[in-house]
């Protein structure tokens, strides 16, 4: 089987064909060119089996949980709690933004949803309190990418499904990098706040007020405990945990906070159907494409090519990070994982890199790509909320991006940072 499909795919992708169709047309045309139309049947069954998966079902459940939390005022309670803790610092609202993203990351698995939920609340109020809109948008974008790094994570579920690594293990491996990014962003913010003399918006909240704010967000903050506790202890599969999270959010929003009504539910489910339908069909197409990558022997030729460059694992990891960062500028994390995971991961596993370690490096790197121009969904969201241009926000984000790049390199070259938690929990 020739490698024509890959070049056709690249051409179609660059020409602007939707990724999901390029993943199918590339292999399809290539089979016609090679006169192997009998394999069309195999393409069809790969596509079906690529979607027909119980582990993958965590994706729609997490999207559902996120939608319910955002429309049910759960985000508001989290921002209020962050405000009571950090609002009094210089640059306090920026710190509140980062802490809210970190806390929300434990409930949501999507950077775009986090950027939109937190951006809508905090970008306007940051602008009112003396921050530039571009800085407010940049902090939001930089912090939102913590969402899919701290579990739960839609991107990690997709990686785990396609590459057959443990979801629980990958979730556990993401906790430390997510915290490192959050702390790094906070340190950078506090430095910028001093240099640029950002305002102090609030007086320091008393511990009584903090207690009240904590109580208000307690039910929301309990979600990650149920979720991760359930998965890591082994009570639930990740999919079951995701469905419990969705049900829990629904009960809290409908009956406890009473911020959601039954009337809103059909619209929520319709929005979830669209979002998850788009992603799941993409996963199905990705699985179809990955099958051709395997049977065509493409993996081996890429491995040979890379090893001809150098057989130094550390150097190869550096190169692959630069490559993924470049890819992340043009492609979403999900499609990039579907296309490149099956090509790259076996090379590094063959060189002795732990599959989980490579997985977390790839996921974090491509997640940061969600906030790099010219193609960055998180930048698009913050741009539309703030009214600032994507380029302006990207430029303002440079100091934060630098932090995130440093974290990518730290977790690449110090595997203990990511691997200790999964090892302690028995995943690796």
């Amino acid at each position, binding site marked *: 089987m020739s490698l024509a499909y890959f070049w056709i795919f690249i051409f*179609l*992708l*660059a*020409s*602007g*064909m*939707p*990724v*999901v*169709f390029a993943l*199918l*047309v590339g292999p*399809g*045309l290539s089979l016609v060119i090679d006169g192997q139309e009998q394999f*069309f*049947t195999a*393409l*069809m069954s790969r596509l*079906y089996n690529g*979607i*027909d998966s*119980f582990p993958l*079902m965590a994706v*729609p*459940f997490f999207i*559902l949980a996120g939608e319910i939390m955002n429309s049910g005022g759960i985000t508001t309670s989290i921002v209020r709690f962050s405000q009571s803790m950090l609002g009094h610092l210089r640059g306090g609202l920026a710190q509140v933004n980062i802490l809210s993203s970190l806390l929300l990351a434990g409930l949501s*698995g*999507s950077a*775009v949803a986090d950027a*939109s939920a937190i951006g809508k609340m905090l970008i306007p109020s940051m602008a009112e309190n003396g921050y530039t809109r571009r800085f407010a948008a940049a902090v939001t974008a930089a912090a939102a990418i913590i969402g*899919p790094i701290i579990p739960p994570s*839609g*991107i990690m579920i*997709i990686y785990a499904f396609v590459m057959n690594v443990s979801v629980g293990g990958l979730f556990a491996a993401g906790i430390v990098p997510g915290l490192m990014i959050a702390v790094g962003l906070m340190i950078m913010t506090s430095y910028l706040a001093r240099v640029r003399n950002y305002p102090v918006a609030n007086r320091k909240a008393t511990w009584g007020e903090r207690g009240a704010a904590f109580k208000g967000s307690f039910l929301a903050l309990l979600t990650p405990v149920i979720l991760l506790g359930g998965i890591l202890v082994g009570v*639930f599969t990740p*999919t079951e945990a995701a*469905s*419990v999270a*969705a*049900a829990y959010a629904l009960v809290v929003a409908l009956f406890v906070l009473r911020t959601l009504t039954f009337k809103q539910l*059909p619209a929520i*489910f*319709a929005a979830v*159907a*669209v*979002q998850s*339908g*788009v*992603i*799941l*069909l*993409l996963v*199905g197409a990705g699985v179809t494409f990955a099958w051709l990558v395997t049977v065509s022997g493409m993996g081996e030729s890429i491995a040979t090519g890379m090893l001809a460059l150098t057989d130094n694992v550390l150097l190869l990891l550096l190169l692959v990070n630069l490559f993924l960062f470049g890819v992340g500028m*043009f*492609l*979403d*994390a999900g499609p990039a994982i579907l296309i490149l995971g099956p090509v790259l991961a076996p090379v590094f596993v063959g060189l002795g890199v732990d599959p989980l370690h490579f997985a977390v490096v790839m996921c974090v790197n491509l997640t940061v790509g969600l906030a790099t121009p*010219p*193609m960055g969904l998180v930048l698009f*969201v913050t741009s539309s909320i703030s009214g600032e241009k994507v380029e302006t926000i990207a430029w303002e984000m440079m100091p934060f991006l630098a932090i995130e790049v440093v974290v990518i390199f730290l977790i690449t070259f110090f595997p203990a940072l990511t691997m200790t938690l999964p090892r302690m929990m028995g995943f690796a």
Partner: protein
Amino acid sequence: MTITVLERMIAALARLNAAVCGAGRHVAAALLAVMTFAVLVQIVFRYVFNNSLSWSEELAKVMMVWATMLVAPWAYRMGANVSIDLFAEALPARLRAVLGFVLNLLVVWIVWIFLIESVALWQRGADTLSATLPVKMSVFYAILPLGFGGMLAVGVELSLRQIAQFLNPARSYAVPASHVPVADA
């Protein structure tokens, strides 16, 4: 003259597709609710009644495949699928229109291939029984020809719109925007 005929064809196809795609999205939403319920029931039965259900997982999976295929025509029609438009946008408008037309024809072609293959899969499914539910696999597979059929109709509509746009650049033939927000991971 040709343009009026073309416009009528587009209008007729648009009415059909808008209705089918809209209905598909709503049914998909309902199926997702069923899917969520099935998995929750499974957990309750395992922990509360100490009884592992055999059928809930398969039912939930089928609901997910169905929901995905039901949304696919809508997503295709509304341009909700992710693409890299950066390079195409740098091309001159005329060239970009031609490129867009050729790309869409390729999509129509692959959807046609998958439609044929899905009919074959559906027919083969008549001989196999589901592992845990009392139905033939063909019932599960039936959504595939429906989904690809819907996408084919959308693909033809989009192609006609592109031709009309080429013949009459003064008017916009784009699919009317939807009020449903689109976002993804």
